[in-house]
């Protein structure tokens, strides 16, 4: 597992270096304080990561489980396209401002869960007449079928779509950070404040940081996908 993670992370190092270089060039062209801009963007990233990572993990895991179970999962997958993270963040900020951290996590986790639900549901439907039918024929009970066959299949499918989920969650995290009062202060807030002030160096540095975060999380997701499903290691 560790070697797989290392391989996946090492594969995106050139992309990360390219992003850092692009941010440094733009920040240097924008003004003299480019090192401070890069430092501030890097320092703000852990707060965004703390928001994005649990939401993605929770959303993908729970979504995959709901997807393979059907029922409520199908409803979540059906309404998923209507609830992008930034819209949920705005609705939660306007209606339930009491617990910004929890609601911020929910705003990010729900779209990820909806996507995972759809993908896992399709994976289960695709395996229904093959693997799952064979397992039933061999006398496997419903619970074992769910946990030992359907859930790994669903998780694998959900992890396959993680790249777009990561991009969507990082994008929505910017809205969450900016709408939740003083709840979060990460790279998303830094990005928007710099963009509003017309500070190109800081805004581009923060955006490069957010893109780097998405690339890194995507690589970790691919490693996890490869660990769950050996077929994905070949990609």
């Amino acid at each position: 597992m560790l070697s797989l993670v290392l391989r996946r992370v090492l594969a995106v190092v050139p992309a990360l270096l390219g992003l850092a270089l692009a941010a440094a060039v733009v920040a240097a062209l924008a003004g003299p304080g480019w090192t401070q801009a890069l430092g501030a963007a890097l320092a703000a990233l852990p707060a965004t990561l703390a928001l994005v990572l649990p939401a993605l993990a929770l959303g993908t895991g729970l979504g995959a489980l709901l997807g393979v179970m059907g029922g409520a999962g199908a409803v979540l997958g059906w309404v998923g396209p209507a609830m992008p993270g930034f819209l949920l963040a705005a609705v939660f900020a306007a209606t339930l401002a009491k617990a910004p951290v929890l609601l911020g996590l929910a705003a990010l986790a729900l779209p990820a869960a909806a996507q995972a639900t759809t993908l896992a549901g399709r994976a289960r439907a695709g395996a229904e007449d093959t693997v799952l039918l064979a397992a039933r024929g061999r006398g496997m009970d419903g619970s074992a079928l769910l946990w030992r066959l359907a859930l790994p299949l669903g998780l694998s499918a959900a992890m396959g779509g993680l790249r777009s989920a990561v991009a969507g969650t990082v994008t929505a995290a910017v809205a969450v950070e900016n709408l939740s009062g003083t709840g979060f202060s990460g790279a998303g807030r830094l990005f928007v404040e710099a963009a509003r002030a017309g500070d190109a160096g800081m805004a581009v540095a923060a955006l490069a940081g957010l893109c780097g975060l998405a690339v890194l999380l995507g690589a970790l997701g691919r490693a996890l996908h490869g660990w769950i499903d050996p077929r994905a290691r070949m990609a």
Partner: protein
Amino acid sequence: MHEPAGTDPHWRDGPWQKAGQRLTAHRPAAAGLTVLAALMLAVAAGLVAGGGPVGAALAAGHQSLSFALLAGLGGAALGLLWGGAAVALGERAERMMMTPAAALTGLPLALALPLAGGLLGPERGLAPMAVVAALIAAPAVAVIARDELRALLRREFLSAVQAAGIPNGRRLRRHILPNTVLPLAAAAWTALPRALMAESLASLLGLGLPEGVTGWGTAIGAAARAGDAVALAGPALLLALTLWALHGVGDGMRLAFTASTPGGRR
């Protein structure tokens, strides 16, 4: 007993009619088309009647939808050109052109619109913002268009056409181009929800549509910052409904028109 050819609807309907039937047979797509048509009528009626929170939300929809249509068409054209050129120029060029497109789809590209909005300042025009939104939507369209074209070029009927010795020009004109229209339309459709989402996010952050132009995102952002759930309800509901409808139609188009989607047309 079979009816004679020409009267049996299976044989009478052309490929376009059949594609339309497949699209409307997909329930989310049919519902999405109905919702989109109703929204267009409601937005037009809201512009005429105006007034009240509902009228304001519908008027804001006019700005958001116009922008999304403009940027989406630009993004679709750019993406189709990108994907089509990659396939036409051969394997090496395809790799060189599609690797960055695929990499861009994994990035939070929608944030480029608020960045552009901030850097262009409050006097920003609609045209440059639409260009940026089109650039945001283009890579995803390019990737899907390339996949569709590759899937089409692998189909048996094209091998049969080649084996029959039909010249390249005629093969392109009579067999490839007519069969690319619908799959590429499905690919191009994905630019619309992307452009609408990017614009709504940027406007929500106060960095989207120019000052004085109120879209759904602008209204949602203002209501969220003020904690006004009543003012938020109209534009949020309309935006959610529009995104759902656009995705429903897009999914239906992919299932009905494309050969590369699992479960899609073969």
